[in-house]
């Protein structure tokens, strides 16, 4: 149904009038030109499209726009502050926790929510929390190391 939806996107008030059943992924990528969030499977199975809504990681390919009405949406584009990489972004770059980089935005956003909920996450907890995000290039070992470094457990500031 066509409706006006309002939410905060990366801290900025955002308003659009469209079918509120559309998926957040496509609204971000098409209507808002925010292409950092990726489409990998369209079925909630890969995590490439992960964004953070009110502090929780969600799969934007499965999230109808109406679900974010009035909420706080954070995407990969919103992590950098004043030109400075977020500690997770920095750790991913430092550890080479990416190859083709296509899974990376989803990985970082999932890790962001994970560390919000478990700032002291152990290696095992990190691996468990990342389980449903797929990476075909096999960057897993470095992804875990990067998240660990950014976590409080290692004195990071995520």
């Amino acid at each position: 149904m066509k409706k006006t939806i309002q939410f905060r996107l990366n801290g900025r008030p955002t308003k659009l009038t469209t079918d509120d059943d559309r998926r957040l992924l496509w609204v971000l990528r098409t209507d808002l030109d925010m292409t950092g969030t990726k489409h990998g499977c369209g079925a909630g199975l890969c995590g490439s499209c992960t964004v953070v809504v009110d502090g929780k990681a969600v799969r934007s390919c499965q999230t109808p726009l109406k679900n974010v009405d009035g909420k706080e949406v954070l995407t990969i584009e919103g992590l950098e502050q004043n030109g400075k990489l977020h500690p997770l972004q920095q750790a991913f770059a430092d550890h080479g926790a990416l190859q083709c980089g296509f899974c990376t935005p989803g990985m970082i956003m999932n890790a962001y929510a994970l560390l919000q909920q478990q700032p002291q996450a152990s290696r095992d907890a990190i691996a468990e929390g990342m389980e449903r995000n797929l990476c075909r290039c096999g960057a897993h070992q470095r992804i875990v190391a990067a998240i660990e470094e950014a976590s409080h457990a290692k004195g990071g500031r995520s």
Partner: protein
Amino acid sequence: MTTTVQGLDRRTFLKLVGGGIVVMVSVGPSALLGQERRRGYPEDLNAYLRIDEKGHVTIFSGKIEMGQGVMTSQAQMAAEELGVGLDSVTMVLGDTDQCPWDSGTYGSLTTRVFGPALRAAAAEGRAVLMQLASKKLGVPKENLLVENGVVSVAGDPSKKVTYGELAQGKQIARLVDEKALLRSVKEFKLMGASPKRLDGVDKVTGRAKYAGDIRLPGMQYARIVRPPAHGATMKSVDVSAAKEMSGVTVVQQDDLVAVLAGDPETAAAALGKVKAEWTKPSLDVDNDGIFAYLLEHAPAADVRLNRGDLAAARSSASRVFESTYNTAYLAHAPMEPHTAIAELKDGKMTVWAGTQTPFPTRDGIARAVGLDPKNVRVITPYVGGGFGGKSSSRQAVEAARLAKAAGVPVQVAWTRPEEFFYDTFNPASVIKVASAVDANGVITMWDYDVYYAGERGTGIFYEIPNAMIRTHSSWGGGSGAPTAHPFAVGPWRAPGANMNVFAAESQIDIMAAALGIDPLEFRLRNTKDPRMRSVLQAAADAYGWKAAAAPSGKGRAIACGIDAGTYVALIADVKVDRATGNVKVDRVVCAQDMGIVVNPDGARMQMEGCITMGLGYPLAEELRFKGGDVLDRNFGTYHLPKFSMLPKIETVLVKNDELLPQGGGEPAIVPMGAVIANAVFDATGARLYRLPMTPARVLEGIRKAEKKT
């Protein structure tokens, strides 16, 4: 000699390039041959670099960045030879209008074959600059030093001139081949170091653009009517309901029926309204029956190796071991599905495509839309994984045809189910081996038949006096039987080698176990190849190997191989759950000799990637199908390696600075099937001959092994 670039002669080309110093690279075609399909391309430039009037270096290369890190390693090589900092180098990759012709990015060729040429070009650029500097400063070349693009006089650092100043007002062009003099390993500053990936920041911020991220005014999102099965033909199609939707355009052109809309969801809804009827061929074969079917349809053998006297060796052998190995069809499943955006403007077609082969793709588009190739431009943004699957770029042709038909820019982004249908899968294969060993543990015979995996990975590095290797068809279909597969097949990370090394290195383990010889000792006893011995030893040292014959109950094993000029040995620890048949790999140690290592951290990254990706085909990946119906169409049933499968990975780079850099993107994945199968045997006594080793197959193997004892 007139050298043409994009149909231009060299003079026009240089005018277009602009001033400064331009060095063109020509790798004789012979260096790039080696795989049949590369024959017959024009002798041409392979790349060039330009030093502009600010001293900035731009490298134009037809190679593409799909995660393997060549954007960084190529820049490093050029910066090293030129004597500039890495930040003075810009890479322009995979743009058919800006870069010279290139056959594609595959086969771990970029560093191995292309690298020396690029280094030579940079070295030539440096020589030109030194000559200019010598004139300008009035000092012989021998007395000049270069650092960060500044030439200074030895002992008098105040006398200096920058590359930019030297290039100013000049138009100098040179052509080099790979024979130019290169800097030696001892002189390296940038090569052999591990700077951070040049693409890292783009990729962690979401700024990196992939094909699907390009936005053009008026761009329409396409969905194409797809057959339900391979081989199906369209009987009828009714697009009337789709046509009635507002904002939807329908294109019908021969076999291509598509709907276009302003956003992907409307396009999907419109596609849902198209009613098509299909005739499905009946093909009575599935992923279990395929092996018998493939053997039945196998073409005659090509003999690749025939030495000694097989029959005599067989009859005199005390024991002959005969095995048949089976491997499944595999999907490439890059996280980025095939995507392209096409725009036709003023008679010129521009296509942004996620492709490993920009130039062949350009030519394919030109043929499909009836344009001269020089009026087609393929631009390759970042590619979200390829693994061989994006060597074929059907989506780019589809986008171009639709853009032409509809007169608007069109995006074709395959859905995951489309990706799992039009992928060129790694072919299923059958490998039959008979081998013999004498009482001293010396291999005496090797009789090897490979069906549908081809020759890569069949090379023998063991000293076997009597050996025969026959290939029946290859991973790309090959001689005589491309139609035996129910769908398209093609190159998959180290094409064919994964299958061949799984069979060969399992067979070696079978013999070692039967004789009660430690598997490392057995390998060392049978190979004199110094590079192989050194990687085996390095892996064993890093692991802390203690001799024991398999099955030792420990669940550890070794396997080795040669790929893309690189030697690799893997040792793995596994745990097998005897109740469920589940296999967990706990640790993998990988030792690799890849010649000079351009970027050690980048090399390790590729090794880790190979090992992690390489957990999939041995344990979980198998494309299921029934006739032309592909049953696994998304990640819910086709299982990629996940975090929970991750072993502890340790990588060792075995120093070999005597050898030019060898391939790094593929070798370490090659022995993964064998090392896991061997470790499962070591843990349980169950030998598995079929990949993937699913829990059910492992349980069956364990039951069989128990019966035998």
